[in-house]
């Protein structure tokens, strides 16, 4: 299944076909006629043909529907809310988080813990940042509230764990510095919309 098909949630425009039912036979003659028609029509052989064609397509035309899951994965929606990621600034490579604490404040399941201090340049430095994934309900508020697009949701959805509470620390979620060039923006909640430039209007100053 392609990603386009997956994202198409507009069910209203699909091509539905109405199945035509023939009238139920009333007299015995009509019943007999229906039996004879069904006998001659060979619908059973249509059924056989359908399964044989499916087998041919599956074997020789690469139409096998099995996904060998641990080795192959289906694409997920880019807006899917899985394990969080911490992004870096593309120019400097420094992490984007400014330590404002909004995510900790808005988190409705109270699973984010952030601690900051001023570094030598009087900038906020994140000293401690953990997310308790045992509590997190992946609502996406933290990504939505973040003013710097620093905390976003990634696509890592295999989150089974042997412990009830499993924490993740800042460094684990942060984009590795050598993978900076492949860092992707999150298009979900809180992200800039694709047509953001078109929506910009001049500030009405001339009253």
């Amino acid at each position, binding site marked *: 299944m392609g990603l386009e098909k997956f994202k198409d949630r507009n069910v209203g425009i699909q091509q539905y076909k109405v199945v035509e039912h023939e009238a139920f036979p009333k007299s015995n003659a009509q019943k007999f006629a229906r039996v004879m028609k069904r006998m001659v029509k060979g619908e059973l052989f249509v*059924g*056989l043909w359908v*399964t*044989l064609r*499916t087998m041919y*397509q*599956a074997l020789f035309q690469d139409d096998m*529907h099995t996904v*060998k899951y641990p080795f192959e994965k289906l694409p997920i929606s880019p807006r899917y809310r899985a394990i969080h990621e911490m992004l870096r600034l593309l120019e400097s490579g420094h992490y984007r988080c400014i330590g404002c604490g909004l995510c900790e404040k808005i988190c409705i399941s109270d699973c984010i813990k952030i601690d900051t201090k001023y570094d030598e340049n009087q900038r906020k430095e994140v000293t401690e940042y953990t997310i308790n994934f045992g509590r997190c309900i992946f609502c996406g508020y933290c990504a939505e509230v973040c003013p710097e697009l620093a905390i976003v949701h990634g696509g890592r959805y295999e989150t089974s764990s042997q412990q009830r509470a499993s924490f993740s620390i800042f460094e684990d979620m942060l984009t590795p510095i050598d993978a900076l060039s492949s860092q992707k923006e999150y298009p979900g909640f809180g992200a800039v919309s694709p047509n953001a430039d078109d929506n910009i209007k001049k500030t009405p100053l001339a009253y």
Partner: protein
Amino acid sequence: MDAIIIETIIKAIIVLSVIAALAGFGTFIERKVLAFMQRRLGPMHVGPFGLLQLAADGIKLFTKEDIIPQHANRLIFMIAPIITAATAFIALAAVPLLPEFTLFGYTVHPIVADLNVGILFILGAMASGLYGPLLAGMAQANKWGIIGSARTAILFMSYEVVTGLSLLAPIMLVGSLSLIDFNNAQSGGIGEWMVWQQPLAFILFLIAGFAETNRTPFDLLEHEAEVVSGYATEYSGMRWGMFFIGEYANMITIGFMASLIFFGGFNDLGFIPGFLAIILKVSFFFFLMLWVRASWPHVRPDQLMWLCWKVLMPIALLNVLITGLVMMV
């Protein structure tokens, strides 16, 4: 005399082991074919293409605990699967499996016992195989088992009639009950196949054969969606496996019978030698059973009896009558 006895025992052992192995292999083929027809892969991970799944399943069946339910009739419960498996192989005794061949200067007839009443023997042995499900369902003190054995009784009463009557017309034409005579009567190539003379009898025999082996349009005995597992509900381990092996051996027997009686048996087919021809024919009938299982829904017990007594049996009788008239004229 001693030589014949030893030869027969050797042949019986070979037939038993080869057909039992093929029946096991048949389960693998069934899972694969059904999977492909449903766009799945089937068993994949045990061995190349999942071929060793067979061994894994066999080990599992052998090592599972042999549970006998508390209120079951122990003796009958233990004997029933043996009846199914044994009769399936007994039926194979009168089936010529391959053409004659010479091994170390000794002519081998690949048939355990060339009876002059071969077809009657096969039908009788396969019919008594239905006692397995019947007794199993009644002995296990389980309501699903009772329903399963009631359905077996329905099957038993209905389809044996059609099997016998459908084969009666070809038997009249050939004038013998031996499958070897049937084979020799069709030695003149595709044009002499019995199916061209008796197409109706072939269709009737095929339908009855599907019912006889509990294959899908008529698999009411253990239809999971309705009666959990029918007569096999309380069975586990190797006793359940014996039912399974018996069913697949019966499928192979029906394949052999259809090929021998209607499709020219093991006569040479153009450039294809006889032994390969019969293997191809039986494989096709085996595949047909799996194909039908993937394609068609199954019928209700009342539809089964309706089909048998009101449609198939009159057609079979008419077929016998018309064949007789044509032979007299």
